Each structure stands twice: as C-alpha cells, then as structure tokens.
C-alpha cells in the first residue's frame, strides 16, 4: 500500500558493517531529511534504499512555500556521535528539522546520507497528513538514548 511506514531501512543494516555511513559529530557525513507529500504514489518503509526512491515517484514536497527540495540539511557538527549503553548503541542529531514560513502538507519523511550517494537511513511516518499554513513545521526527534533514540542497535 502506498505511503510511509516508520522503519530502519534494510539496506542501511547491510551498509553499517561496510562503513558506508559516518555519524561522528563534526567529522562525519552530512545527513538530510526530505518530506513526502500527503498522498504519495510510492511505498516507503524497510525496503526503501535511497532518497531517489522518493524523487523517482515525484513524491517529495514541491520546492517553494518554505520547503527546498532535498529537505532539511544537518551540518556534520549536528551529528551526535553514536554512544553505547548496556548492550545497545544509539545516535541522533542535535537539532530538530524545521521549516519556517511554510505552507504545505506532508505525511512522512526519509532521512538520508547526502555524503554517501543519498542512501536512506530512516523512514518515518507521521501517522497521517500534517498541514502547515504560513507557520513552522518541526519534526521533534526523540530523546537520544537507549530505547528512545531515532536510530538504535540493541
């Protein structure tokens, strides 16, 4: 079924032991968060591999009205270096993706590594259509820790 399902992309699991991604603060890669439209034609979830999956279906929010295609870009300095606790590892970013002076609707997102051929590292569903009108849309990342972080290996 078309739409977004929150998932840890399977391709990302395979890329981790190949050292494709570097989440180290300041010296790591640049990651971006792209928003999908309210009613996408594609299906996004664990099988999603790349940002191009979104653009290939013309499912990204259109450029303009507070959104720039490609999405919100974290700087490498905003990566939170992966940490471990107990038997788990977790990592995140220090700021929340945010779009100001925005007017659009969205239903999900893909976080991808723009330093590594736009490979997907996270797919998120917003649980329905979220609409912003001349305002600010913020994606609040969960607390960076075991059991809560946006990305974890347990």
């Amino acid at each position, binding site marked *: 079924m078309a739409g977004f399902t*929150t*998932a*840890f992309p399977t391709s*990302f*699991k395979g890329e981790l032991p190949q050292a494709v991604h570097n989440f180290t603060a300041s010296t790591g890669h640049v990651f971006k968060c792209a928003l999908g439209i309210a009613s996408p034609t594609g299906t996004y979830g664990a099988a999603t591999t790349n940002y191009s999956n979104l653009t290939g279906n013309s499912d990204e929010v259109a450029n303009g009205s507070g959104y720039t295609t490609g999405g919100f870009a974290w700087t490498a300095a905003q990566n939170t270096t992966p940490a471990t606790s107990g*038997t788990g590892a977790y990592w*995140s970013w*220090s700021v*929340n993706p945010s779009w*100001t002076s925005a007017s659009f609707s969205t239903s999900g*997102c893909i976080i991808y590594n723009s330093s590594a051929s736009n490979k997907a590292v*996270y797919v*998120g569903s*917003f649980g329905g259509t*979220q*609409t*912003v*009108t*001349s*305002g*600010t*849309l*913020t*994606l*609040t*990342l*969960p*607390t*960076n*820790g075991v059991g*809560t*972080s*946006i*990305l*974890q*290996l*347990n």
Partner: protein
Amino acid sequence: MDFVNGHAAVGNLKVFVTNGRTKTADEWASEIMEKLMHVAENAPAPLRDQAVAFRDKIYVLIRDNIELALKQEREWILSQR
C-alpha cells in the same frame, strides 16, 4: 552454536506545527526538553518524581533564557533601525 539476538530499532518522530506564527519560548523549551531527557513511565516512583522535578526546573531555565534571548535580539534589531 549459540546465537545472540540483536535488532535495529527506530524511534518515532513527533510533528509539531504552528500556523500563522513562529514557535514561542514555551514551545522551544518543550522541544528541547524532549531531546534532553526522557523519564520512563515504568521508573520507580521516587526516582521518577525526582526526575520530573529536575526536568521541570531545567524547562523553566531554558524557557526563561530563550525569552530573554528573543527579547534582546528584538531590542538590538530595533536599535539598529
């Protein structure tokens, strides 16, 4: 051979929208607190109460400083006109 189970997991994003305005200091502070600390619902009551009390104090500190920063920035911009 023994196999040890492990799994990759993802946390959930929350979407926060303001229409016709930017975020207030209260909203910024709430957002920062979500990133800063998480108090588990199933934590022992005395620990949870202490954590919540600490969280509330930090929240006020952040909110008040954001308000001050916004106020000073606006005053600075006005003074430059």
